[in-house]
């Protein structure tokens, strides 16, 4: 299926605090901008796939969105899969197009935990709340600590991810946080849940983002400007909740990447720029290992010495990622990969031909990989 589908347009709202905006409203704005970017009318769209918002669960969310968009697509649904949902929906769109079911798909996501309800991030974790087990961050902290135990990693290894993402975000005029940090500042940032420091943790953001998917053939017929080719995708879902996971420092991200690389006929060495889901700094470190960029336990040394900064061997999260651009889970990473391959990114990687995107959700439960090329 390599190269048969393209991303024809991308759009997003402002990122940060957007009080008064419903998630449907932000989705509509992002979809309008993505359609304008693809230069196609909304009547061309015959599928709308949306990730459910985390801040406010609603039944029949997909239908509410298509009503607001004023379209009656052939296919429409909302997916509850945490942060992996955006790439999952992109994959489903591609397969539906290839199966002749649809022609043009809008894939979108919006959420407003910053100005709305963010209780989900500090939630009690079932009966284990009796032991004080609360919050999303703590689950990642538990994995982070096990990584320290198994690999003797240093705090600076995690700090290198935070420093790079914040540096890239500082250069991005759309980023929610445009403030670079030094390693000393990272080391001095307060505990959220030890071993997680504040600067290990992503932002909490309002915002929406959307992309338009169609076949490469349809994009040529419609004269779409700078379509970005989808070379590969893959999925892997780690079923166990954190305490029950036999292995904490590797996930089915490995399977997702293997599948995506096989479809693309590429390997880690072919990647020019990587946009890896960075809800917490441990996540991209483990993703680098599971994807085969380095051996298990070696991600720390791998990200040191500027390797993941612009100009390094593997520029990472070039618009700031979840740590600096926006904490919204995932779609912005695909949009930045598209900008890099169109050659219009603020932190442009010279001659970028192949970009890799990872999405994951829950506490590393769900994972999806996307490989794009120009």
């Amino acid at each position, binding site marked *: 299926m390599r190269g048969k589908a393209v991303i024809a347009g991308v759009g997003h709202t402002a990122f940060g605090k957007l009080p008064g905006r419903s998630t449907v409203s932000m989705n509509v704005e992002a979809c309008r901008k993505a359609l304008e970017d693809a230069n196609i009318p909304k009547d061309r769209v015959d599928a709308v796939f949306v990730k459910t918002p985390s801040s406010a669960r609603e039944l029949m969310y997909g239908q509410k969105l298509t009503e607001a968009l004023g379209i009656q697509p052939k296919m429409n649904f909302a997916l509850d899969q945490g942060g992996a949902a955006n790439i999952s929906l992109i994959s489903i769109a591609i397969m539906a197009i290839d199966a002749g079911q649809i022609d043009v798909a809008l894939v979108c996501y919006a959420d407003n935990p910053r100005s709305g309800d963010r209780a989900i991030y500090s939630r009690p974790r079932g*009966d284990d709340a*009796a032991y*004080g*087990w609360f919050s999303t961050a703590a689950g990642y902290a538990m994995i982070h*600590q*096990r990584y320290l135990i198994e690999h003797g990693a240093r705090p600076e290894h995690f700090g290198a991810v935070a420093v790079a993402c914040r540096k890239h975000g500082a250069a991005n005029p759309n980023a929610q946080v445009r403030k670079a940090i030094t390693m000393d500042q990272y080391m001095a940032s307060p505990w959220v*849940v*030890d071993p997680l420091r504040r600067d290990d943790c992503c932002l909490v953001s309002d915002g929406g983002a959307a992309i338009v998917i169609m076949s490469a053939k349809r994009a040529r017929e419609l004269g779409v400007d700078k379509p970005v080719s989808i070379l590969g995708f893959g999925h892997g879902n780690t079923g166990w909740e954190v305490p029950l996971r036999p292995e904490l420092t590797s996930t089915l991200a490995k399977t997702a990447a293997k599948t995506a690389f096989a479809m693309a006929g590429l390997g880690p060495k072919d990647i020019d720029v990587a946009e890896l889901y960075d809800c917490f700094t441990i996540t991209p470190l483990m993703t680098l290992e599971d994807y085969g960029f380095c051996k298990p336990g070696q991600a720390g040394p791998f990200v040191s010495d500027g390797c993941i900064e612009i100009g390094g061997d593997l520029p990472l999260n070039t618009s700031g990622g979840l740590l600096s651009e926006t904490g919204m889970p995932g779609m912005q990473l695909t949009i930045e990969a598209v900008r890099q391959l169109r050659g219009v990114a603020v932190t442009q990687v010279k001659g970028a031909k192949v970009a890799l995107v990872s999405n994951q959700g829950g506490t590393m439960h769900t994972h999806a990989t996307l490989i794009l090329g120009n």
Partner: protein
Amino acid sequence: MADYPLPQVTELTKPYWDALDQGHMVFQRCNACANAWLPARQECPNCLKADMRWEKASGRGKVVSWVVYHSAYHDAFKDRLPYVVALIELDEGPRLMSNFLGAREALRGDLPVTLVIEREQGFALGKFKAA
């Protein structure tokens, strides 16, 4: 302290909490395939059969990982900061979340630990200390 987040005891989990109340920890073991696990389920997650028994644990295990809370997400934990939530693997195999009691400095990967029953508002919880 009125609203301590005590477990919601159900028909499924009652044997687990009752055992702690009587001073020991139990886990489920499948009669069909011998798989052992926590927390309580209605089917074995290995062979999917609904034929299991409760088995008494030795109370011995090891620390797989841990986190330290320096701020409280619930008022009941404000006076306990900093406190440790640890992921424990029982000698019999099942894993669970719990608290590590004692000096944090003693914590290390695979540290042997042993069960300690502590009560919150009379409700028995299974916690662990260095063995």
